[in-house]
């Protein structure tokens, strides 16, 4: 099982100190190399869910298991290491570092794993996403679609077991939307990476075999 969530709870705090429940998930799971689209409305807790899975935000309780390792039980440093080694993250607004070239941004993704930085692998991935002619261009010299392709290469460069994609096509035009989705899906299939893609677009979700609504398994207001 690539991803398993059981009894996961996450509350934020209202300004007056009262708890604001965001996540309350009984069970959610993804098999190895499975690809799934998660649909949900704005403010529904999609990004918080991805952050909890990635270990960026700690769950209040429950089990968040990545390849059998429970994120909730790990200290922050352990979550950071697990995230660096096993999880790739593609953001809606790409989040590339502006002072770094396309190649350097991908290499940056390899810098925190504790393993050797493989320049050839980074270049190969950029070639795979059709950017072999843009290796040494900085993000400001790339189109929006190209920037997102760099972000995809960066997310996959560590050969993660799980790729989290948070509205990856929300900032790109239709032509690029299809291209990027194809790249993500094909590359994940090629490398047997489990994919969890969050979107609010029914069109995007329609190309996935498995589509779930967050509200179907997340009931933040429900009693424990």
């Amino acid at each position, binding site marked *: 099982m690539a991803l398993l969530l059981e009894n996961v709870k996450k509350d934020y705090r209202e300004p007056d100190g009262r708890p604001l429940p965001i996540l309350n998930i009984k069970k959610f799971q993804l098999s190895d190399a499975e690809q799934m689209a998660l649909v949900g409305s704005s403010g529904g807790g999609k990004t918080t869910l991805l952050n909890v899975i990635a270990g*960026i935000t700690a769950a209040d309780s429950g089990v968040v298991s990545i390849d059998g390792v429970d994120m909730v039980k790990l200290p922050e440093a352990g979550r950071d290491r697990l995230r660096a080694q096993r999880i790739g*993250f593609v953001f809606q607004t790409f989040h590339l570092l502006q002072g770094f070239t396309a190649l350097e941004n991908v290499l*940056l*993704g390899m*810098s*925190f794993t504790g393993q050797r930085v493989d320049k050839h692998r980074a270049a190969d991935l950029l070639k795979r996403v059709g950017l072999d002619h843009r290796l040494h261009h900085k993000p400001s010299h790339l189109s929006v679609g190209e920037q997102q392709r760099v972000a995809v290469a960066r997310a996959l460069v560590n050969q993660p077991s799980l790729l989290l994609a948070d509205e990856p096509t929300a900032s790109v035009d239709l032509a690029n939307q299809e291209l990027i989705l194809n790249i993500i899906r094909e590359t994940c299939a090629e490398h047997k990476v489990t994919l969890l893609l969050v979107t609010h677009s029914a069109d995007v979700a329609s190309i996935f075999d498995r589509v779930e609504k967050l509200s179907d398994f997340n009931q933040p207001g429900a009693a424990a």
Partner: protein
Amino acid sequence: MNLFSISFHSLRQRWLSSSMTLLSVALGVMLMVTVLIVNGIMDRMFSQSASGYDLIIGPKGSALQLVLNSIYRVSAPIENLPYLYYLELLKDKRIENAIPLAIGDVTQEGAFPIVGTVSKFFDVDYIPGKRFRVKGDYLQQPFDSVIGSVVARENGWGVGDQFTMVHGGAEGHVHDEKFTIRGVLAPTGTPNDKTVFVHLEGFYLLDDHEKPGHEAVNRWREFNGLDPLKGDELQAEIKRWGIEAHDHATHGEEDGHHHHAHGLTDIQKEVTAVLINMAGKKYGAFAQIQFENEMKEGFKAQAANPAKEIYWLMTNVVGSVRAILVVLTGLIIIVSGVGIFVSIYNSMSERKKEIAIMRALGASRGTVFSIILLESILLCVGGGLGGVLLGHGLVFLSADIIEGRTGVLINPWAFEIMEVYVVATMVVLASVVGFIPGVTAYRTDVAQTLSS
């Protein structure tokens, strides 16, 4: 990519702010290094060069001036001593070496100081354990000369070349007589490199280098505490000393040299100073103290202890100036440190997102703290090393001016151990000023920053 290249990238991205910060650190360190180098050179120059001789005998007056003039060839001579007194010193058994110096003239070309002396000057270590080495010969004949390495280089002179001297400084008249260079000294790193040594006998043969008979007689009497003579008594004394009237018509040519043929009596000769090495082994250290006390009580001359005078100069004058400069440059470096802090801290708000991205990619809090700290260290150490280079460069550019004005020889590439401490201090400073921005990076809320 490692932490170093990530930090370097961040600095390069903010190149203007980074380079301005780097420059301010480099300038601060440059000033400090320059002070340290010049101070180190002067310290070595003065303390080493002063250590070759036990005492310097000269006329009563400033002991420091006597030392500066006779060893460092800076400052004007106080007055002169009678040559007869030098002969008396030679007979003192407590003294091992007594080397006369006659100072005051300069070369016509290059205005290098002339020192009339005897061959023995070159037999004594100029710094303990360091002997003069010469290409050619030392002083043999009255019109022989030995020149320092800098004189040879700057004037393009070599063995066999001849030169003329200007009497009593650069504005005096040019002596007709020519001296022949017999030897060129190997570099010593002391003021001797910029000095022209001539045979004392030749020096006395030059016009204006002897006292008229009546002056010489009364000067010697006065030196010995006797009343001056007048009229017949004075004439009789002049005759008794065998002094002849100076007749310019008797000038002749010998060995290609034009010089005065008149016989100069010892009473008419003078020396500027006498360098002394005490016969310490034979008579013990007490002999020097006793000798110095005798000189203090007497009225004829003074004995200056060069090591003591230079120690006083270094401690009270140079030391104080150095302390002020070091404090000032230290403050400049602290200001530079504040500059680094402001530069990095101000960049933190715009870099929060970068830090959050790195954290999302798996960088730990410690890693992002290290990246920021490393930026501060890169700026400090880069500026520090740049400052060290600039400091040496500045000394290199000003070496000739300092040499020209003070006579102190400067080696711009002399490395001071304090420079290592300066760079080490910069690392500490960087750690201090990088700490708060580093903590800001450490505490960045990843989820909130990425979503904002």
